[in-house]
Every structure is written in structure tokens, then in C-alpha cells.
């Protein structure tokens, strides 16, 4: 009986919260869009934005969740480890200096640079971490250093930039879904589709890592390999997402934390729940960014930070009070 009860509770944990955000997400998506009317607007303008919001939220939250586990630090996410800053620097080289890959069409040059810089930042991070014997603390410290270094270079570029370029750059660093295209959506969807199966396959190993590195090793988990592959997945996801929409903080941090409050840390449920909460948060943020000031599309990065933060605090405090 105890066993059946145990399985029942596990099943309950799995179906409840995971099913709920999905349906709400769909409602938010359709409700926001259908009212606006015509098919052209929906398909060419609104839907890419809405879908991209979902995918970006999912990608950032998933990478945040995996990063937090493999680096054993609840503050880890692409934003705090300098990935976003590096991407912004990449975008700046394209916008201000006009340095781009020669064989790429012009509309992709900013994204391509951002992607390369973000990926490069994470590669550098792993390399440096490996040289020093790669504990999580070392990686995090390097990440923070990288964040500041990229920020400093970005400031230099802003200093020398022309007024036009500066405006474009500032807009990019605020994070925006406005330039969404179906190609971008497809690219991110592909990367997500490629990464998620591997993430889910590693779910038990990631769960084991929550018992500490030694315990995970004694359970038979190759912790170094796990960390390496997970960071590779995270790099791809975060770099792709950030290169498409610019700097968006908070989702990679809050998505996993909300998911953890809902379903706990069994990664079979925690990872999907992070994906869903991330998607939901971004989707709501996207909707809000259109509604706060009627007629004006606020940069969605601002919305996630401004509106998301108080909500997040409230969730945490409420969680505390319940205990």
C-alpha cells in the first residue's frame, strides 16, 4: 500500500504542475493573438513573436536549470555567467564595427556574431575551468570575470559608436522579440529538439548530482563527462536564444526556481517543468510588453526583469511562509 501511495504521489507530482502550465500557455498564446484579427498579422507578425517567446523562454530556463545543477549553484544561469554579455559584445562588433562573417546575408550578421561570441565565451569558460582542474567554483568565478570583461569591452564600443549604431545596440541589449522571423524560430526549435532528448536522458544522473559530487560518483555517474556534455548543450541553447532576441535576464534564473517549487528536484520532472515555466514566463512577458504602454512595444527583456522580479519575490516569500 505504501508503495502504491508513493507511486501515486510521484505520478501526481508529474501530471499536475506540468500539465497546468502547458494549457495556460496555450490559452495565453491564442487569447492574445486571436483578438487582433486577420490571418496575415497572426501568421506573419504575431505568431513568430509568440512562438519565439515560448522557445526562448524554454531554452533559457532549461539551460538555467541544467547549469544550476551541474555547477551546484542556484544562481547560475546564462546571464550570470557572462553568456549574454558576450553575445551583446558580439552584436556590438556587428552593429558598431561592421565586423561580420562575409558569406552571411546582412540580416543574419548580428545574430551570427552574437551566437559566435556567446558560444566562444562558454568554450573559453570550459577551457579555463579545465586548465585549473575545473571545479564548479572555478567555472563560476571565471564566468563572472568574463561577464565584467565583456561588459567593459561593450562600454568601449558604445563609447566610440555613432548615434545610430548606439541606439540600435542599446535596443538590442534590452532584449526584443520584435525582429522574430520564422527562420529564427526554426533554428531555435531545431536546437531545442536536438538538446532536450539528451537532457532528459541525463535526468537521473543530474538528480544524483544533487547529492553531491562524491555521492554521484559512487552511484556510478561520470561527473566530469556529465558536466562537460551538459555545459555543451547549455552553450548551444543559450547562445542560440540570446543571439535571436538579445539580452534577457531573469528567465533562466526564475524558470528553474519556480519549477523547483512546483515539482521538486527529481530531474525527470524538474527539467520539463523548467522548460514549461520558462516558456510560460516569456510568453506572459511578451504579452505584457505589448500591454503596459498601449501601442508601444516595450523591449521584452525589460518586462521580464521589472514585472518578473516582484512576482518571483512573492513566490519565494510565500514558499517560506508555508513551511
Amino acid at each position: 500500500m505504501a508503495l502504491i501511495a508513493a507511486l501515486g504521489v510521484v505520478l501526481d507530482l508529474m501530471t499536475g504542475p506540468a500539465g497546468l502550465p502547458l494549457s495556460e500557455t496555450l490559452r495565453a498564446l491564442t487569447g492574445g493573438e486571436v483578438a487582433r484579427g486577420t490571418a496575415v498579422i497572426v501568421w506573419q507578425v504575431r505568431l513568430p513573436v509568440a512562438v519565439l517567446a515560448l522557445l526562448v523562454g524554454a531554452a533559457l530556463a532549461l539551460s538555467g536549470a541544467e547549469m544550476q545543477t551541474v555547477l551546484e549553484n542556484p544562481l547560475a544561469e546564462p546571464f550570470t555567467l557572462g553568456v549574454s554579455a558576450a553575445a551583446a559584445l558580439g552584436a556590438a562588433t556587428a552593429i558598431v564595427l561592421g565586423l561580420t562573417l562575409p558569406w552571411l546575408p546582412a540580416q543574419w550578421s548580428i545574430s551570427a556574431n552574437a551566437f559566435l561570441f556567446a558560444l566562444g565565451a562558454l568554450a573559453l569558460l570550459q577551457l579555463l575551468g579545465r586548465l585549473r582542474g575545473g571545479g564548479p567554483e572555478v567555472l563560476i568565478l571565471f564566468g563572472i570575470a568574463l561577464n565584467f570583461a565583456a561588459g567593459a569591452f561593450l562600454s568601449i564600443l558604445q563609447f566610440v559608436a555613432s548615434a545610430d549604431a548606439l541606439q540600435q545596440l542599446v535596443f538590442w541589449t534590452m532584449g526584443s522579440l520584435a525582429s522574430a522571423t520564422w527562420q529564427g524560430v526554426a533554428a531555435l526549435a531545431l536546437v531545442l529538439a536536438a538538446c532536450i532528448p539528451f537532457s532528459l536522458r541525463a535526468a537521473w544522473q543530474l538528480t544524483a548530482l544533487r547529492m553531491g559530487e562524491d555521492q554521484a560518483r559512487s552511484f556510478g555517474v561520470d561527473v566530469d563527462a556529465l558536466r562537460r556534455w551538459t555545459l555543451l548543450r547549455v552553450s548551444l541553447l543559450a547562445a542560440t536564444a540570446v543571439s535571436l532576441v538579445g539580452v534577457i535576464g531573469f528567465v533562466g534564473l526564475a524558470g528553474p526556481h519556480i519549477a523547483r517549487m512546483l515539482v521538486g528536484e527529481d530531474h525527470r520532472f524538474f527539467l520539463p517543468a523548467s522548460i514549461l515555466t520558462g516558456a510560460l514566463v516569456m510568453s506572459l512577458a511578451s504579452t505584457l510588453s505589448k500591454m503596459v504602454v498601449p501601442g508601444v512595444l516595450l523591449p521584452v527583456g525589460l518586462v521580464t526583469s521589472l514585472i518578473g522580479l516582484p512576482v518571483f519575490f512573492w513566490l519565494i516569500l510565500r514558499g517560506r511562509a508555508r513551511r
Partner: protein
Amino acid sequence: MSGLRIENVSLRYGARPILRDLTLPELCPGEVTVLAGPNAAGKSTLLRAIAQLAPYRGRITLEGEDLARMPLRRRARLIGVMPQALPAGSSLVVLESVIAALRAGSDGFTRKADAQAMAVLDRLGIADLAMEPLDQLSGGQRQMVSLAQAIVRDPRVLLLDEPTSALDLARQVRLLGELRALAGEGRIVVAVLHDLAMAAQWADRIVLLHRGELHSSGPPATVLTPDLLARVYGVRARVERCSQGRITVLIDGEVQGGPRL
């Protein structure tokens, strides 16, 4: 060749040697071995070396097979480790954490994993905690959970680092009795224990380490003598004989001038 052999094992942290060319008598299935010794004797480090969690020089073999060369997953099936403490702050549920101990390193346990994990919790008398988050358990309860994680893979060798440090008396007796039963099923049980009275009562063999070297080893009655306790630990102690050849250790106080070694 049926047991665990530790031969010429040396280990250093930076420039500081922790274990110096340590060779132990073979540890056999069915026996509970207690690693004893003062602080910084290298007890926990030796456990970590056996578990292949710390790099060392020398050879550690199980049934003649070098543990350092064994594939990770196979080794995980043979050796269970109970650390001093589980990290705090995980909201993982007890049952999930035990299933993770079973499934993280193996694809072969998938079907029976839940039942197997539950059976282990039952055996340890903590089945009622199955659905509790780890971060809401007491230190002692967490310690029982980490024992469950160590034995759920049904390992041949069980390594325990101060398994009773956070337990109340009843739980200590229960855990030590459980270790005897686990050894009785043909396992090699090695535990670091600080409480020599407990060690004297429950161990088949005591291995006394001192400054990274083997000081003495054998049944409690031959290793634990007042003279040795004075020299290694620097305490005045009485050793009393009980029934069934067992002994008990009573500590009276410090020796003037501390340990003499």
C-alpha cells in the same frame, strides 16, 4: 583472493602526506572492520581512496581485480559509500534520492527500482519518510537516508564514514546491528568510528591508523589496550571484559603530556 586488499597506498594533499605506504591485512566478506585512530590519522581519506574518490598511488583490489581500472558503473554496483553527511538544501524527496542512487549509474534497474528503493527504506525503518523532502529531515534522518543510498545497489563492499555521528542511541544500535546483518550476508563492511566503546562492541576487526600509517590491527580485544590508548590517543582508559569475549572501553581522562607517539 575473495576480499579487499589495500597494498602500498600513498596519498597526499598538495605537499602534505595523508597516507604513507599503507598496507592492510586482507578485509574479508562477513567481517565488520572499524577504522579507528585520532584526528588526521587518514581514516576518511582511506575510505575515499577505496571508493576511488581520491587519487592515490598503490593498489586496491577486490577479489584480485584492481578497483582503479574497473569501469565506473561496474564499480558502483560493487561498492556502496555512505558519506559523513549529505549536502544540505536539496528539496529532493527521500524515495527519489534513493531511486537516483540506483538508476543514475545504470540502465538495468529501471523496472524494479521503485520497489527496490522502498524495500531498503523499509529495512532501515524509515519507510514513513519516503515522501519527505531531504531538506526537511533531521541530521540523523538524513544519515539513515544516505545509508539507504549506499546499500540500495546491493553492493559487495560497504564503506561508511562515521555513520553514527548524528544518530540517537537507539538509531546507533539499530544501524550497527544492521551493519552486522549486512556483513552476515557476505559483504565486506568498513566503517570509520570515533566511539571506541561502540567499535569494541560491534567490530570483528579494528584497524588503528596513526599519522597515515597502520599502527595495529586485529580483534578489538587485542588492539584496544590501556597502554595503546594512552600512547595513540593520550587518554587514560580501562578496558573491561564482558561476556562472549567482547570488551568495553571506559575513558577516565587525559594522560599528562598528551599522546606519546
